[in-house]
């Protein structure tokens, strides 16, 4: 329907070339190639035969004319194309003020530097956030009417009660798996009974609280970030501030306190469920009846194993709540930023939980607990 763009010599008019056809973005690829290869000696270009001209075509034409060293006035144009051509030339001839783009290697170094700085800034932010939370908490400690009781109870239900089935089920399954694994190794030594020790030690000291913390890091830290982040991006947090309320009291403290209460309880549930899983596997496939399992447990387990596990629970709760809330506050204006920060909250909190757990394991082993 539209004829391809052409540029031909017009022998009868001296050193004048005639452009015709449709000079549009549809044909721009081929046209640009043709023009780039063309080395001609002309005085004028007659563009009045062009049927359709759009801004892409106008740009190619004007650049071609300039490359030939001709004045732009030597281009003859149809009256209705003149305005477009002039507008394109005007914009195109303004000096570009582009900032230089760096090469790949420099960009890579720049990226490494940026992430390093970001890491330390994040750490500093997290400490500052923690400090502000504690300061706020101490401040309202003596003003019971400002305690966010309703919100705290709501979050205990959200993060604690509603997560209980999931935590119990997963711990039960992991408990069963640990017992199976132990059994396959210990059977060779005829020491099946030690499956009891393995399961109880693992769940009381590590797995109960660690599994709970990892599940909550995925389930709750992300929820905190998404909730607060959405509020941030819709300027709800600014609204809270302008009304004279403290977002830390309204948003951060209830979540932190709720998690400090919910996580130890959930950890206890996880320990019991894990032990139940181990007990079930023992009685069905290892011929260790439930009564023997419990006897063996009470004979070997000491209180401090339980404490080693439980003492980590508030620490994990603190990390998950702080990272979740802080990432929420870091959300910028866009919907995309909510997603980015949520991912970052989950990754950070899971990583920190496992690192802290490893350090704690070393510490408790060293002090002989």
């Amino acid at each position, binding site marked *: 329907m539209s004829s391809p763009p052409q540029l031909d010599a017009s022998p009868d008019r001296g050193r004048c070339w005639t452009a015709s056809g449709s000079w549009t*973005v549809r044909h721009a690829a081929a046209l640009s190639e043709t023009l780039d290869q063309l080395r001609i000696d002309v005085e004028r270009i007659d563009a009045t035969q062009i049927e359709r001209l759009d801004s892409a075509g106008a740009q190619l034409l004007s650049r071609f004319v300039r490359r030939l060293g001709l004045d732009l006035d030597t281009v003859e144009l149809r009256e209705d194309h003149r305005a477009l051509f002039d507008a394109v030339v005007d914009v195109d001839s303004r000096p570009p003020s582009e900032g230089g783009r760096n090469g790949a290697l420099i960009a890579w170094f720049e990226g490494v530097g940026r992430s390093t700085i970001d890491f330390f800034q994040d750490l500093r932010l997290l400490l500052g956030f923690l400090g502000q939370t504690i300061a706020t908490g101490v401040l309202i400690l003596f003003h019971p009417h400002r305690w966010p009781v309703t919100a705290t109870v709501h979050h205990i239900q959200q993060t604690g009660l509603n997560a209980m089935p999931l935590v119990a089920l997963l711990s039960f399954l992991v408990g069963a798996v640990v017992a199976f694994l132990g059994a396959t190794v210990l059977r060779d030594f005829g020491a099946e009974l030690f499956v009891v020790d393995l399961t109880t030690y693992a769940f009381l000291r590590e797995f109960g609280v660690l599994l709970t913390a990892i599940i909550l890091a995925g389930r709750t830290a992300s929820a905190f970030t998404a909730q607060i982040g959405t509020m941030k991006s819709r300027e709800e947090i600014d609204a809270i501030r302008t009304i004279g309320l403290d977002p830390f009291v309204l948003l951060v403290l209830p979540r932190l306190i709720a998690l400090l209460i919910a996580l130890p309880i959930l950890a206890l549930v996880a320990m019991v469920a894990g032990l139940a899983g181990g007990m079930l596997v023992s009685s069905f496939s290892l011929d260790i009846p439930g009564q023997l399992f419990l006897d063996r447990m009470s004979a070997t387990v000491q209180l401090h194993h339980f404490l080693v596990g439980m003492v980590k629970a508030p620490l994990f709760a603190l990390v998950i709540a702080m990272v979740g809330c802080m990432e929420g506050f870091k959300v910028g204006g866009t919907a995309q930023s909510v997603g980015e920060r949520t991912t970052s909250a989950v990754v950070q909190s899971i990583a920190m939980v496992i690192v802290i757990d490893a350090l704690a394991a070393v510490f408790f082993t060293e002090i002989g607990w």
Partner: protein
Amino acid sequence: MTDLAIEIRGLVNRFGNQIVHENLDLTLPRGQIVGVVGGSGSGKSVLMRAILGLRPPQGGDIQVLGRPVTGIPDRDTHLRESSGVLFQDGALFSSLTVAENVEVPLKAHGRGLTSVLRRQFATLKIRLSGLPLAACDKYPSELSGGMRKRAGLARALALDPDLLFLDEPTAGLDPIGAAEFDDLLKTLQQALGLTVFLITHDLDTLYTICDQVVVIGERRVLTVGPLNEVERFDHPWVQQYFHGPRGRAARRQG
């Protein structure tokens, strides 16, 4: 080729029991800026979405540039290549820079343009839209509302479409920014010979740049015509709209 940009016959749009348009007829010529006004919820955006084929209507017939829109699949390249759309807040792809945003239509319909040429055309459109060159490598979240609209306009113009759809382009801009946007639109419309379908609440925009005004209400088009005819139209809503305090102020300036 037909001289009509948009031709709508007996359009019906319903959401459940709620009827938005009933037997709506509208014909718009080429090469004009058409302002579309109407109360909130009168179905201006629904009409635009129907014309663009984004929302299949329950009845009626829509022709854009002489080709039917109703009942054709999303991949109707003719409609997509000959129309550009600026959504309310720009609807720029947030994971791409401004220049990459403008290059998207060129990539989709550009027929083998090299990346250098794509970049060159995208840069031209961005500068035509009145943005500084430095904006090319910025992400939409780094731009102000006015700049996002200009970037959205650059993307809408990427393929030099015949038809430009704008959904409240001056909403959320300050008066100076809005006036600049109006000027830009008028300049581009004249230079590129565009037909512009402009949904607006901005009376200043209507008075300064629109050649024709379409008033939508009571599920149909109440009246179409040049502004001085439309504002004399005898209908309570139209009278209130153009002769309220804001309308009077805009007319004095315009």
